[in-house]
């Protein structure tokens, strides 16, 4: 029986609930802007990684190479876009 129990998924679920609760704290507690954003960014990225690995099964099939390459490429392009935009519209204006 025990090997049928989706242990990883249940733990993942609990963990993602905890992450959501922590993110909500930013709203309920009176934090500084920087502290709040730090908490939000960290919980958001951990949450996204968790969802990908535990619930979207990245890394469980033989095409995990192309899946991780795609994710990596996506992250690179997202970072370039975000920091490029900051450079254009804020830092170098």
């Amino acid at each position: 029986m025990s090997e049928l129990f989706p242990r990883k998924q249940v733990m993942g679920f609990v963990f993602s609930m905890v992450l959501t609760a922590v993110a909500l704290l930013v709203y309920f507690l009176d934090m500084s802007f920087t502290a709040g954003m730090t908490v939000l960014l960290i919980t958001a990225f951990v949450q996204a990684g968790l969802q990908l690995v535990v619930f979207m099964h990245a890394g469980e099939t033989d095409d995990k190479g192309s899946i991780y390459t795609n994710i990596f490429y996506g992250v690179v392009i997202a970072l370039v876009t975000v920091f490029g935009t900051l450079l254009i519209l804020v830092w170098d204006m």
Partner: protein
Amino acid sequence: MEFFERFAIPHPSPAIYASMVAIALTMVAIVAGLTYFKKWGYLWREWLTTVDHKRIGIMYLISALLMLFRGGADAIMLRAQLAVPENKLLDAQHYNEIFTTHGIVMILFMAMPFIIALMNFVVPLQIGARDVAFPRLNALSFWLFFMGAMLLNISFVVGGSPDAGWTSYFPLAGTEFSESVGSNYYMIAIQIAGIGTLMTGVNFLTTILRMRAPGMTLMKMPMFTWSVLVTNVIIVFAFPVLTVLLAMGTFDRLFATHFFTTTNGGMDMLWANLFWVWGHPEVYILILPAFGVYSEVISTFARRNLYGYKSMVASMVLISLLSFLVWTHHFFTMGQGALTNSIFSITTMAIAVPTGVKIFNWLLTLWKGKIEITTPMLYSLLFIPLFTIGGVTGVMLGMSAADYQYHNTMFLVAHFHMVIIPGVVFAMLAGLTYWWPKMFGFMLNERIGKWTAWIIGISTLVAFMPMFFSGLDGQARRMYTYSESTGYGPLNMISFIGAVGLAVGFVLIAYNVYYSVRYSPRNISADPWDARSLEWATHSPVPEYNFAIVPQVDSSEAFWDAKKKGHELFKGEYEKIHMPNNSGVPFLMSCIFFVWGFSLVFSMWIPAIAATIGILACMAHRSFEKDHGRYISVEEVEETESKLRGAS
């Protein structure tokens, strides 16, 4: 009555009333024709519900050609207005609407579907697959694109066309300065079509990565398939930006949010920024498949394998990355500092390097090749010098300091037409002519085809070269008229003549189709060009299952090796073939999307909510539906094969 007032045209003219009548008459004629010839059932069974990648490709093709003529009519009107100084043919408002729809139609509803048409028809055949990875999704992609295109196309007779340019910069496109529903059409029609394109991206990425014939490793894929793979990577990463951008724009216009306003914390330049984050990769989405077509055509008609296969692949991969790193070059003059502009100038010029590598590879393929000038080859040979003019002027524009001089002048307009027409349009026409026999089982007439290629090639130069000069003289783009004392008159007249030449060329294409349908012989072989890749290894027209036996591949030119080196492509016996079932849901769902979009354009909330529920219902239906496809029996395969073998 009040309810209907919103559908009125804010700025009517006799020409618009005439088009209303023409559209109404055409619709009546189509409905009457279908009823009279009893073709409704045929249309529904064979086309509206099809999930076959070849038929979907052909529907994309027909739409693209129709839109080419719609966009072409716009172009002729624009050039006619500018042909002489102080012309009164169009007023400022109409001119604005026409250049806006011209840009949207040509890029999103002509070039994109043309590319996706070839992609759909050719890629599964080139990789030896039976269909794409998600055939039903493919049908949905097409119908969403189609409904988006139709939604934009009715704008000029219902409620008014968008008039803020195809780039739709805010604050001009905001509700304050664009009061008519035109810009709502822009946001929503492109959104619907864009979702379709994004799904195409996912679909073809999966297809190419997962469904290649045994033995076809990535480095043994034909170059067109490679270009499509890279293109779809760009689509998957660039189009979400467009989706979000248009959603934000829609919110600003319909729900008075402040993403792009100049007040209340909005930032109008964020629109330009995000638009080009999508927009520059988009121009490479257009050009890379075109490069793929040229690679196929040039190696086929130079009768040599493509020179520098690996460097071709590497340069495309590099272009796909660099295309995301240059977007600022579209607004060097927007006010950011010299540091930013210099960084993006350098990345922009860097793109010319891999592009140059490709040009030299084609030249080296031609070098020592046994060149045979067919129509597709003629387009490819015309492409090389003409595109180089566009590319070199692109590098000029890429120098940010110099761009202050060129930006938003006719010089820029000349640049992008000199890359898009020789680059994309010639490639699509070459591809159309090249794969036509595979699609329809007969060839297009070569003599008319070559005349057309020459006329289009020369007219492109006549139409766009003068703009480089008038641009350097200071003629601004998007101005509906100019005074005689500017001296722009003669150059613009030459340009108009070129535009008429292009129109003649496009009419000749239609004539060629008509002529070839009537007179072209039908007893051609399955491989009329003596070509090299797998799509030529099956019959023309292609049976619905593509290949009776899945081919075995061990080089990038499997079919050529089969012909010349005795490589055996089809090993084994016929087996029953698993195929997907047709479905009407993609079509219905897209119709609901049309209603949804139309309701949102006019802020009619109740139908919009009803349509949203309808869309969700279609998705739910799909989730719970049990459809495992069907099998084609061995007997049926045998029967089809022996019949087709007789035919070709």
